[in-house]
């Protein structure tokens, strides 16, 4: 493809008027600005000193004399560092478990004349139509003895029927002849899954894995409901310290030199980093349409 934009326009399509093109370009710039500006403002504020923040009425867009003081304070140890590690572990373990259970069930449900297959599938699909409600779900976790345990952050949201359907549809669209040939050669169902299906499914696994990981990373309500504050993940620290403005454990001592607003925004930035790191590697699957293909069937 050449660098000239004109090349991709179909022959029958007239060249739009300059006014239309300009207004379209302006619209796109404004949209991108609106999407990114709040994030950039947060980043800039986290890198600013107290005087700069005060001069700019609390919000900085381009940090003059950027300083990492806020991050140094945070990473000197204490509440945020602990919560960050907890969040990373919960997200990693949770995503791995979710992917395993989802892939296993989705693969099992690809056999068309499976004993009880329709029943199992419907059991999963119906959960998209109703939710048991907040109180019964809470009582279930309590009855299982999961209160104040990390399992309460993972088990209740272990699988989503939507992701199950996405993975199953993807598996069913793979060329079945391949697996049939392997079966004739004596490969068992499990071996076909591990050695043939999974290597062909990297795209869908990446997308569904991202959904799960983002879910675990961002979740705060289960932590608020089930955990005492010594087990809180980063999202709850964020709520407590940034949204409610309550002091943050022992780091309060070190706060004197650094404006607390910069620290608050630094916590926001830290919780954004994993998402911003992972997203570029996976977004091509969205723009390429792996997901829409899966949703469509």
């Amino acid at each position: 493809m050449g660098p000239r934009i004109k090349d991709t326009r179909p022959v029958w399509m007239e060249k739009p008027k300059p006014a239309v093109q300009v207004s379209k370009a302006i619209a796109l710039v404004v949209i991108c600005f609106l999407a990114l500006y709040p994030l950039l403002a947060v980043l800039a504020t986290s890198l600013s000193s107290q005087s700069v923040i005060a001069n700019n009425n609390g919000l900085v867009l381009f940090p003059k004399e950027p300083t990492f003081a806020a991050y140094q304070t945070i990473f000197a140890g204490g509440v945020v560092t602990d919560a960050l590690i907890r969040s990373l572990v919960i997200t990693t373990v949770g995503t791995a478990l979710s992917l395993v259970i989802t892939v296993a069930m989705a693969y099992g449900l690809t056999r068309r004349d499976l004993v009880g297959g329709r029943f199992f599938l419907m059991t999963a699909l119906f959960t998209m139509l109703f939710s048991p409600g907040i109180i019964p779900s809470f009582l279930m976790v309590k009855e299982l003895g999961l209160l104040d345990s990390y399992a309460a952050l993972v088990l209740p949201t272990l699988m989503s029927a939507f992701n199950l359907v996405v993975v199953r549809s993807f598996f069913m669209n793979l060329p079945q002849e391949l697996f049939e040939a392997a079966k004739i050669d004596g490969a068992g169902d499990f071996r076909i899954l591990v050695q043939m299906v999974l290597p062909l499914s990297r795209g869908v696994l990446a997308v569904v894995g991202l959904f799960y990981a983002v879910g675990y990373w961002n979740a705060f309500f289960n932590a608020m409901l089930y955990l005492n504050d010594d087990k809180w993940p980063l999202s709850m620290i964020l709520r407590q310290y940034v949204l409610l403005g309550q002091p943050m454990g022992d780091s309060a001592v070190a706060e004197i030199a650094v404006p607390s607003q910069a620290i608050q925004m630094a916590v926001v930035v830290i919780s954004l980093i994993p998402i911003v790191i992972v997203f570029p590697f996976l977004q091509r699957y969205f723009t390429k349409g792996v997901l829409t293909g899966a949703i469509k069937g």
Partner: protein
Amino acid sequence: MSSNSHTLTPQATPDVGGPATVAEGRRRRRSPAASASRQSRKKSLMARIRRDKVMLLLIAPGFLYFVVFHYVPLAGNIIAFLDYKPYLGFIDSVWVGLDNFAAMFQDGAFWEALRNTLVITGLQLALFFPVPICLALLLNSIVSNKIRKFVQSVVYLPHFIGWVIIVAVFSEVLGATGAVPHLLENLGLPRFDAMTTPEFFPFLVTIQSIWKDAGWGTIIFLAALMNVDQELYEAAAVDGANARHRLWHITLPGIMPVIVLLLILNLGSILSVGFEQIVLQRDNVGPGAGEVLDTYVYFHGIQDGQWGPAAAVGLVKGIVGLFLVLGANKLAHFFGQEGVYSNGKSK
């Protein structure tokens, strides 16, 4: 058949009637007992279980998960009929029949929560719903692949940011010390804190939802736009239709089924607003403006210990919501769509 049926309706309903795979055909031929291929279905249950044992073992953990965390808790709704006390448990709490429901209808806070819920979902339907459609049309009209993919990536990103972060970011920009109040002040307008003004709360929630999910919402419309027959455009252009004519007479009719489908599905979920989003901000504006049905259940039940009455509200909301979703699906079928049960997540 299924390979080129690019309809947009998700075919998530079980497709047991789909084309028989090569696998099944071969299996039938190889099995000596099933030379008359119809007979193979009658293969003894034990034999089929033995054949599928790996598959069934793979399904078991997931099935168990759905039963334990989605179906068994349904039974817990029984406390809507109890004067539930945690120290007494399910068995020893007093049965009060429909008292909790009667109390619900007399509770002003419940009606307030219901009103707030409907105001917010109504506003989202009016203001949020058209945005992804317009955005998708704009994206679709970009000729350069590079620019389109860049803009797509930018507008998809906020979808992956959690509500705690979003509320923090919005407080920073719109809150008392943020950029927007200062801008208003510099323009000589009265100071206005969007985060804590009760009257503005439904708009605030809607703006946040648009920022987070309008870009993501374009995915389904972009897919619909790709499925519009490109030859129609060419033929129309040859016949002298300009860009506006083509938009009006080809593009919009082409994606109208998807628009109708999503509109109906949104109507089906009119009792549900983003719980995490609201629970984080309810106390900024007070329950008068910030309480919705889900937060009512949480604050009255789990926080204040009125387990029975709150569970009654949750149960009514769940049942009415279920019927709304089922009704919406019926309506979608009526409009010629199929298999939409799966699609609640496209919002």
